[in-house]
């Protein structure tokens, strides 16, 4: 069985560690030639998935297809066309960056001549290539890890939180590099917690929670229906504001944000924020604050709160702090541990 046009596919992938399931039937479909953002809260199973995809561990159940062909225990050669950076980069601390890449090039697929110098240049380590890795900063090790993943010019690149420790210029450079690779027809599968970065980088995203896929698709489409307008009114006017807005969006689409501080979330396309404003004004209510956006963060938090696949209804901003703060604009990681509302 092959899935044409998919660089990577998993079907019913399961993996437990002891009694704890890390993956509970994961179905991923990664098209060729795209940057795929692989998202999920801490402990969702992203790194576990990467390890399975590189044969470091083996699934308890389910199948994996890499570059259109099935990938099992005996198929290590398939990895000759795959480059990976999993969790933290791995190097001999007593060897230089250049010698580490040389040592790595002695394994797996052959590496073209000049490739190591090319990569050191690409990741901005040419000057420091002769220094021992133990003298590198966090971001420099990460850069070297990215170079290592690119060593054999892979058709499929698996990067587990590659932006970890990179400075802003490094992040921009990495984004450009990855976009460039995708433009060449290569597939980049990248996990990240930096959602703003993923939003800029990825063509397609998959969000997992508790070892299962909860949403997958082209990022533009997924964000289309994810608009929200957040308004803040006087506490005494919350009910009146809700009444004023229900005709616009329907009863279920207006909700108070936890915290009793007058914030309301209106589920409506971000582009229609002015309509919300007008409806309020017509009812004689004036919002003291109004925010609109259809960002990935909102979608992510919505999808990954509590149990995977639980109803999204009425949980959108349930996590907002109980203090006077506006709705969550950061702290995506907190969402994973949040209980059901």
């Amino acid at each position: 069985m092959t899935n044409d046009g998919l660089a990577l596919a998993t079907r019913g992938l399961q993996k437990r560690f002891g009694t704890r399931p890390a993956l509970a039937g994961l179905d991923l479909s990664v098209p060729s030639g795209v940057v795929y953002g692989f998202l999920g809260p801490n402990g969702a199973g992203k790194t576990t998935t990467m390890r399975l995809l590189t044969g470091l561990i083996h699934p308890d159940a389910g199948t994996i297809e890499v570059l259109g062909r099935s990938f099992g225990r005996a198929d290590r050669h398939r990895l000759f066309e795959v480059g990976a950076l999993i969790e933290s980069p791995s190097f001999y601390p007593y060897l230089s960056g250049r010698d580490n890449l040389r040592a790595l090039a002695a394994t797996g697929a052959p590496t073209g001549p000049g490739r190591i110098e090319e990569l050191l240049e690409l990741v901005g380590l040419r000057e420091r290539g002769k220094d021992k890795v133990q003298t590198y900063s966090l971001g420099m090790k990460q850069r070297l890890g990215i170079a290592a993943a690119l060593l054999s010019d892979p058709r499929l690149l698996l990067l587990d939180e590659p932006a970890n420790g990179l400075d802003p210029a490094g992040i921009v450079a990495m984004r450009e590099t990855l976009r460039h690779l995708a433009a060449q027809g290569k597939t980049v599968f990248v996990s990240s917690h930096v959602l703003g970065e993923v939003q800029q980088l990825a063509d397609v995203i998959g969000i997992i929670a508790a070892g299962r896929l909860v949403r997958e698709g082209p990022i533009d489409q997924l964000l289309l229906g994810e608009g929200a307008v957040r308004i803040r009114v006087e506490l005494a006017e919350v009910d009146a504001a809700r009444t004023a807005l229900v005709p616009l969006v329907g009863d279920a689409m207006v909700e108070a944000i936890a915290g009793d501080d007058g914030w309301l979330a209106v589920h409506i396309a971000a582009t229609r924020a002015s309509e919300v404003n007008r409806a309020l004004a017509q009812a004689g209510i004036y919002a003291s604050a109004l925010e609109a956006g259809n960002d990935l963060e909102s979608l992510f938090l919505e999808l990954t709160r509590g149990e995977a696949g639980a109803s999204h209804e009425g949980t959108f901003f349930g996590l907002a702090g109980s203090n006077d703060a506006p709705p969550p604009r950061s702290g995506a990681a907190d969402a994973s541990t949040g209980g059901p509302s």
Partner: protein
Amino acid sequence: MRIFVAGIRKLLRRPATFVTLGLLVGLLGLILIAVSATAGQRTGRAAQESLLLVTFPGAYSLILSFILGLGGLFAVIYGAAIAGSEWTWGTLKAAVARGESRSGYQLLSFAAIVVMVGVGLVLALAAGVVVAIIGANIAGVSTAGLNDTETLGKMPELMARAWLAIVEEGALGFAIATLARSQLAGIGAGIGVYFGEQFASIFLPDIVKYLPFNAATAVVATSGTGGPGGGAIARLEPNVALLVVVAWLMGALLVTAIFTERAEISG
């Protein structure tokens, strides 16, 4: 082959390689010099026996068995450090993720250790001989036996036996650290096994001669100078010891290969 060559390059740049060889040569030199310098203060048989260490041609095989005795602990630590760091640093993970054969990677990495042990052995022996000549001069012993052709003719075989024995001890450390999946735990467990075997001789005198370190020191037949057993317990006959050592070596490599193939690699 690429992995083997890369393995040698890695070991040549690794501080542990030179620290291990340096310690071995340093200890050997200290002992030889100390023996020759103090020989004059002793009398009778004791003085004569200690001077055997710097009296050629007999000194050749005595120095070799000395290296073998000291080398056991160093070899197990070195083997454990190399294998364990592959897990601790995640470099085995990186190779496997590139599609490299797990057992192939491990065995070729070990092959590089085999070469390094051989080179180290030759260097240590050469250094030992030089120090022994100096010692002989200090103690006023003739070095006329240096060119004894009969002894020199036997040396290659003795060297090969010692090489195999130290390689076996290194393989043991390699296997232990692979099972421990960690550099520190591997070195700790390796040292534990080494001294455990020495202690076992108190309780299991009949069995202990078959254990890896005692068998290794028995591979080169000498009058029992040096070596962890110190000659207190029965030794295997050298050729029997050779077979036992080969069996331990194969066993250690097999365990390494099978465990690595089956391991779930994380970190």
